[in-house]
């Protein structure tokens, strides 16, 4: 028995050691832990800001009580039940205590009264993530080839066309591109549905038969394209600049001098190093995915997290709103930390201490 425990302990230690080494040594782990800890006051502050701001707005979550005339007593009873009658700071204290137990509190909206906020988020977040991840994939899938083309055929018509499309993609706001796409493909051609999302809520990765069904694809094309083109524009620009930079390096000259075919030089030698700065864009993209899907969801009426957030504002669903805000913040903080970690991975000269 003790031998088994020893073995488990040994394996656990080795795994921990491997993780520490993968993250870049003990100093890096310390740095990450410090960054995560530094994120806690930020989270508390944004929680309090959202908490206080939404309560300062006139109207409350229970304004729906009573059809013609508001029944003050019923409202008071509901407010008491959900603890909204207490002073602001006490409410906040209670909320944070619950939060530490992993409890985001109950929803206060009319339709979901009493449903745990975590449950609602668990239903909505996967849909936002699906939109975001597919858009990022499209962004890289479109942006990298475009950037490589522009760099390989530097200062040619191809380069100018690719660069022009990159600026165009960056410039057309999604609130313009979205409605225009709807106008062309949904209204005029009637190929695609106007709104909503083709998979069930609460499912992170839809089963394959859903994922490849026309229903899912047809709902996904326009929102993913709208969000993805903007990303691909930035990625293309970065890829082009980075590849052009690398092509001037000595080792590329060596490779050419060895008589390697130009294709091998570009795609095997140059591209490998050129993509390093491009990879670091993943961090900012993570944040962009969240705020981006926010806009996209409203345009295409996709029942995701952004849509939930805006509804929770208008319904004064205090708990849901604060819960979603915390989630956005946490993503943003983790995304920022991820960027810094990736920099050290990709460029060992960067050190944090």
């Amino acid at each position, binding site marked *: 028995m003790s031998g088994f425990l020893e073995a488990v302990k040994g394996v656990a230690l080795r795994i921990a050691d491997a993780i520490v080494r993968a993250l870049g040594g003990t100093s890096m782990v310390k740095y990450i832990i410090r960054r995560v800890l530094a994120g806690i006051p*930020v989270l508390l*502050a944004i929680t309090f800001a*959202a908490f206080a701001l*939404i309560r*300062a*707005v006139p109207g409350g979550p229970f304004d729906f009580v009573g059809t013609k005339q508001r029944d003050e007593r019923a409202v008071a009873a509901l407010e008491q039940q959900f603890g909204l009658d207490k002073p602001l700071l006490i409410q906040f204290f209670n909320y944070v205590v619950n939060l530490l137990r992993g409890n985001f509190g109950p929803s206060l909206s009319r339709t979901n009264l009493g449903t745990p906020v975590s449950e609602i988020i668990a239903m909505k977040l996967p849909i936002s993530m699906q939109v975001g991840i597919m858009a990022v994939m499209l962004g890289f899938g479109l942006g990298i080839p475009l950037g490589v083309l522009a760099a390989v055929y530097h200062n040619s018509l191809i380069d100018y066309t690719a660069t022009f499309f990159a600026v165009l993609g960056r410039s057309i706001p999604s609130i*313009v591109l979205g409605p225009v796409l709807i106008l062309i493909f949904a*209204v005029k051609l009637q190929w695609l549905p106007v709104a909503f999302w083709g998979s069930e809520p609460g499912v992170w990765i839809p089963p394959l038969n859903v994922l490849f069904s026309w229903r899912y694809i047809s709902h996904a094309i326009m929102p993913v394209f709208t969000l993805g083109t903007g990303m691909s524009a930035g990625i293309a620009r970065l890829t082009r600049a980075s590849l052009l930079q690398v092509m001037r390096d000595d080792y590329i000259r060596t490779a050419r001098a060895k008589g390697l075919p130009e294709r091998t030089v570009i795609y095997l030698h140059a591209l490998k190093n050129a993509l390093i700065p491009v990879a670091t864009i993943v961090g900012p993209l993570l944040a962009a995915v969240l705020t981006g899907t926010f806009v996209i969801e409203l345009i295409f009426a996709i029942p995701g997290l952004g849509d939930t957030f*805006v509804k929770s*504002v208008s319904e004064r669903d205090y708990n849901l709103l604060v819960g979603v805000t915390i989630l956005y913040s946490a993503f943003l903080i983790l995304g920022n930390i991820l960027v810094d970690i990736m920099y050290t991975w990709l460029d060992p000269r960067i050190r944090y201490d």
Partner: protein
Amino acid sequence: MATRERAKPVTLDEEELLRKPRSPMGDAWRQLQKNKAAMISLAFIIVLIVMALTADLMHQAGWIDDYNTQHRGVGYAEPLTCANDDKDEDGVPDPVQFCFVFGADELGRDLLSRTIYGTRVSLAVGFIGSGVSLLIGTVYGVISGYYGGRIDNLMMRFVDFLYGIPFLPLIILMQVYFKSLSNAEVGGLAQVLVDIDNSMGGMFFLFVALGALSWIGMARLARGQVLSYKEKEFVEAARAVGAGDLRIIFIHLLPNVIGPLIVSETLAIPGYIFSEAFLSFIGLGVNPPTPSWGAMINAGREGIRSKPYLVLVPGTALALTTLAFNFLGDGLRDAFDPRLRGE
């Protein structure tokens, strides 16, 4: 004199030597002039600015309509149609014809006039937003970078702190709060601010919300720039001859660091314009009836099946404007920092 003549490098001719000393700004301007897309964009932006400034004059001259005049009986007028409009509700159409170049919206308001007036909101948000951000960010970053040490540490911790705040949700919350203020009697200083906001059609709080959250990146950039310049020899030389902190900052550091900051702000302008358009799109931007492209796009979405121009006209205006600012920003970046051109 003769020795100087001899010391002249052979490759430089007389003209080149006698030329006036070239400033970084002048260099950048010469470089920018070579960039056609940037120059066209600059011209376009100047036209937009003139349009925004002279919208009232054009209205008085009778070229465009007031943005809020509702022509009766011509709701959803098609583009390039004219109608005898009935402004005074007597049931008899006036003899004066009014022509709708871009059509009219659901209330019979001329779309061309609304789009032109909409330039004001977008440009104001773009310029004032970036101006506020540039000012706060530069001051903050320069102080932090120049004085260094504990001050720098403290100031940058605060920036890191703000960096984790999700911009869009918070700005939505702030706008919801500010919007609720505009209908309420608050009294005191807050009332003054609310009155200012109401008189500006809801733009003032938009500036506050955008400006308060957008200077963070600028402060980091300014600090980094100052850090890289403050150890340079020319700063040391200035200090050696007894220049004070303020003189070093304003005379020696700022002219060197301001270029990249301006470029970065120019590239950020589309972001501000887009933020305003998006907020107006979801009804949290400027107050109706002030015309804003975002609000017009949103209003037009309902009729998109039969009246696509309601979305296309303000949408094109918005896209062209952001396109112009992006081209100009790219051109400025190339002009100020040739290393980034990727050549």
